[in-house]
């Protein structure tokens, strides 16, 4: 047990003290702080003053006798543009002026209230402007028409009062996914799926590289003459995990500093709206279990190669699995009910992402969570037992790397005999 902690602290310490670790953590932290303050930074560089709002001239040829344009022009709701009535009713000249840069857009209106048609010039690259303009025109038309019809307030209220809409689940105790809840889960799942992918790729290859490096420098033989290879392997996985956790912590701290500096209320909205503590706990548990599952395989693969340069080749299958899991979960985000997502969530290598996806997006029954978690825990343990045996044989094996013969040889070498 002593040796286990010696290995953990040695592994973590070496990693944390390494220049690469310090620099990448610092760069990551700075990047996060500056991203969170991007607005302030851009403002500082783009000089003072507000952005010029673009101008939409309104050519009003409707029966409203210019009312339309005036009501539009009276809209003062902080949008990125502003309406101005055009001095004449000539659409062509307004468009011509826009081409000459006197204003940005031209909105030409004509027809009677029953049939108003609007043409918008200059939409081009930003479809959202046209969308907003369309809404505005619609609203103005409604208010002008109700005005024309001479409806009283009661009648107006009847028209505009919203319908009360509520949802109920079919099953008892079921939950209804609200749009907010859905978006929250969506982004968290998205985040976690990526987090697991990154953890597997970076830490998996870290574990494999570390093992291969100790093998290639031949120090491994001395180490395993003092400490059981299985203890050493688990110590390594935990040590690198600890360094990774520290890295994560640094990112959180950086995010907090960035938040404090920016004075934005981003985090408050995040915490109040997208933050669900039980989801975070599930995420952490799944990341940790996933790490041990993938980490065991990575250590095993690292033990099969003789030189650090061969690590990339050796961990390729693991990377493929991680990529496939990533693809499946991205697809699954939009169809969390699909049967294949349900089935695949039982496959240990996909469980961390897919189970979380189902917990976050779907209403997965409690017993299934327990069963799938159980499968994941048991397979993580089994994988590590198998990995340990192959590791034990693999660390003494040198020669050209080949999966088939390597695995078989290592497996036999690690055999407990007599």
């Amino acid at each position, binding site marked *: 047990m002593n040796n286990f902690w*010696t*290995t953990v602290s040695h592994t973590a310490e070496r990693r944390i003290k390494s220049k690469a670790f310090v620099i990448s953590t610092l760069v990551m932290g700075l990047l996060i702080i500056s991203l969170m303050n991007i607005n302030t930074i851009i403002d500082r560089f783009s000089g003072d003053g507000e952005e010029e709002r673009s101008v939409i001239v309104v050519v009003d040829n409707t029966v409203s006798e210019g009312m339309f344009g005036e009501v539009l022009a009276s809209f003062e709701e902080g949008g990125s543009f502003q309406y101005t009535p055009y001095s004449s009713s000539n659409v062509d000249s307004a468009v011509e002026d826009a081409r000459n840069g006197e204003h940005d857009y031209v909105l030409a209106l004509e027809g009677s209230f029953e049939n108003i048609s609007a043409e918008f010039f200059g939409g081009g690259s930003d479809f959202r402007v046209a969308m907003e303009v369309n809404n505005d025109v619609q609203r103005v038309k409604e208010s002008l028409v109700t005005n024309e019809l001479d409806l009283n307030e009661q009648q107006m209220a009847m028209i505009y009062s919203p319908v009360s809409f509520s949802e109920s689940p079919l099953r008892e105790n079921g939950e209804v996914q609200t749009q907010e809840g859905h978006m929250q889960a969506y982004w968290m799942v998205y985040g976690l799926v990526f987090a697991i992918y990154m953890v597997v790729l970076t830490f998996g290859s870290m574990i494999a590289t570390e093992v291969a490096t100790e093998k290639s420098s*031949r*120090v491994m*033989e001395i*180490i395993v003459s003092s*400490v059981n290879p299985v*203890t050493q392997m688990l110590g390594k996985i935990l040590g690198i995990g600890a360094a990774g956790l520290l890295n994560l912590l640094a990112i959180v701290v950086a995010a907090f500093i960035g938040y404090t500096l920016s004075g934005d209320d981003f985090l408050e909205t995040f915490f109040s709206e997208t933050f669900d503590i039980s989801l975070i706990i599930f995420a952490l548990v799944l990341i940790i279990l996933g790490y041990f599952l993938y980490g065991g395989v990575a250590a095993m693969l690292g033990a099969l190669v003789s030189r650090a340069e061969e690590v990339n080749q050796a961990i390729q299958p693991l990377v493929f699995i991680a990529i496939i899991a990533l693809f499946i979960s991205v697809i699954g985000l939009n169809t969390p009910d699909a049967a294949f997502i349900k089935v695949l969530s039982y496959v240990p290598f996909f469980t961390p992402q897919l189970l979380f996806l189902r917990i976050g997006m779907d209403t997965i029954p409690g017993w299934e969570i327990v069963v799938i978690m159980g499968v994941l825990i048991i397979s993580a343990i089994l994988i590590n037992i198998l990995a340990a045996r192959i590791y034990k044989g693999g660390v003494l094996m040198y020669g050209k790397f080949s999966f088939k013969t390597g695995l078989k040889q290592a497996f036999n070498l690690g055999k407990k*005999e007599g």
Partner: protein
Amino acid sequence: MTLVIENIRKTFDNHVAVEGISLKVQKGEMFGMLGANGAGKTTSFRMILGLLDPTEGNITWDGDRLSYKRTKLIGYLPEERGLFPKLTVKDQLIYLMKLKGMKKPDIIREIRQWLDRFQVPEYENKKIEELSKGNQQKIQFMAAVLHKPEILILDEPFSGLDPVNSDMLKDAVRDLQKAGTTIVFSSHQMRNVEELCEDIIMLKEGKAVLQGNLREIKRSYGMKSISIRADYELAFLRSIPGVMNLDVSKDGAVVKVENERVAEEIFRAISEKGFVRKFEVEEPSLHDIFIDKAGGDKDE
């Protein structure tokens, strides 16, 4: 306390690496394991260390099997040297010795003592990759002995060393033996084995071809070597039955004969011829025995 190896056998797939080896090494003894490359020395060492489990047979120290619980009893210098190239001498010895259950202050004290002994105290904070090969080997040796093991396994400890460093290491090994450490070592350099060991085992293709007390082996080994100096032609000796090899040079000849009886016959034959300036029957060198028994290895 005795290291006892009983009839061990190790097979990899269909290949037999070690077969039917038994030996006993008493406390404070220096035991030599000889054999050509691939004879099974390293595999045997790995089994003693518990890195590999024997397919059959037992290995015990002081009556108990060696396991990771007793790892601090053993020191190991592997044939393939290996240290962390990027770590300083101090940092890596601290890590490796912590794995042997030592406390940090003790480790540092021992590091300084050994560095002084090897006359390289300035290496304490140097990285391994900055050291020469010979000096790396001193550190490697320290990694095997710093924790004062009861059993010390040295796989080719003197290979690749210059004579000065080689002697320095040899003295250290002798001192450890005097202090009561049981030492098993392998070497291609027969002179080192002759100098240091009382008992040896010689392996060929995983089997013991020769085993026992080195002096007795030499004395009872049939083959003898005779050097003769005389004033007349000695080539006629070749025709005497039992002569294995005759090496005539300017000032005499070296004759290898099958046994002592042949030597007596040669003595009679040349004393009939005339005056003999020198006639000496020597025991064969370990080198000769090695080539005779283990065959073909010309490492020395």
